[in-house]
């Protein structure tokens, strides 16, 4: 699958520009080249394949309608698409009737290896390395909570219940962790 690991923001941005003009052929190409990555993003949050594929449909309808909102000067094209997919997936997760229970979180232990797979594109890898380096500077429980929150889309309440820690502590750890991350990333 890695061979379809499309990370050429340039080509994707070009397609988006054509989609913004109403070019259906470009839209088909965009789907071909990006839908695998976007489904992967949805599946990280929604482990249910049917839900994830349904969200993926919403995502591309949104992309067709909102392609003109893409501002190449502000965001990389794949990041823009991926953000739409992730937000739609989390919104769906929140809307699902009965949240399925997920594994408990052991926040006293060392960081589990939840890291993403290696990417083909050096620039993306650089972003990830910087983020990981900064995360590693946080105390372990903040690391675990922030990773779990991001990769599973878990709410504060879920994190509290899964880790057996008070909600207030969870919020506080994550908020401080976020500010530490920001400070580190902006160095």
């Amino acid at each position, binding site marked *: *699958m890695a061979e379809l690991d499309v990370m050429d923001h340039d*080509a994707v*941005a070009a397609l988006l520009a054509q989609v913004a003009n109403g070019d259906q052929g470009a839209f088909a190409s965009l789907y*071909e080249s990006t839908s695998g990555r976007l489904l992967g993003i949805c599946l990280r949050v929604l482990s249910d394949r049917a839900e994830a594929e349904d969200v993926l449909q919403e995502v591309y*309808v949104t992309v067709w309608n909102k392609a003109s909102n893409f501002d190449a000067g502000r965001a990389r094209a794949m990041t823009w698409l991926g*953000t739409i997919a992730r937000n739609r997936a989390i919104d769906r997760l929140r809307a699902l009737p009965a949240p399925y229970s997920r594994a408990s979180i052991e926040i006293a232990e060392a960081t589990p290896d939840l890291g993403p797979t290696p990417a083909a594109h050096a620039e993306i890898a650089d972003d990830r390395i910087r983020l990981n380096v900064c995360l590693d500077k946080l105390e372990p429980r903040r690391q675990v909570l922030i990773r779990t929150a991001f990769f599973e889309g878990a709410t*504060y309440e879920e994190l509290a219940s899964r880790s057996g820690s008070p909600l207030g502590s969870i919020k506080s750890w994550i908020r401080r962790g976020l500010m530490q991350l920001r400070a580190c990333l902006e160095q």
Partner: protein
Amino acid sequence: MNTPIEQFDDGAEQIPPSDEVRAGEYVLGVLDADGRRSAQARIANESGFAALVHEWEQRFSGWLMGAPVVTPGAHVWPRIRSRLGWSPVASARPGVWNSVAFWRGAALLATAASVAAIMIGLQSPGPVAPPVPAVVQAPAAVVQPAPVAEEAAARPVTVLARDDGNAGWIARIDTATGKLLMVPVPSPADAQGRVNELWLIPDGQAPLSLGFVSNEKAHTIVMPASVRQALAIGGTLAVTLEPEQGIPHAAPSGPIVAKGGIQQI
């Protein structure tokens, strides 16, 4: 039994988080449904808050893009088309863009990855002039990217538009290497078996052939010295349908299928 630190942590919950933290919470994904809705309303209405969210999205983009690639089921694409009110089956053949070789080739040339800004100008191609080579109405302005450090190597592109105004190809000229990257929006092959031939038409001069150009896959073309010397702003890139035999031809004989004025190099 809480340690003093824990107690301090618990107390922090009472203080409403700053916008900076709230934006981070939204992007991290810890807000519940109500929290997300109110954050989304603020994103829509408060540009300052939206900017904070945008910054957090960039910070976490490395993790976002680390998601695995999972090919969707075949039913997804027709359903997207249906949701858009289109017929479920398209005449286009998106499969050709699966080509690994294509994406590798494109990626190789797109070295300065987030060339982002170069495409801004592509969003509003005007009507295309009738196929008169010497008098060219450029279909799309190419906007020089804003100076962003990592985009220093951004290169402008030329859009070759078809008569209906849709892009047929996107060309990126690299004068340093003398190469031209041609990215097609896939189109059906010619029913009469002709192939696409690319031409540079220097302003007011006769066309120079750059040889075959694919209607399916992106590829690079090494420009001959004669073409490199003639390459200048004001020239035109055009694609014509020609017999495969004898490419590159001395002069075009078939109809122009797409063209675009070179506005920047």
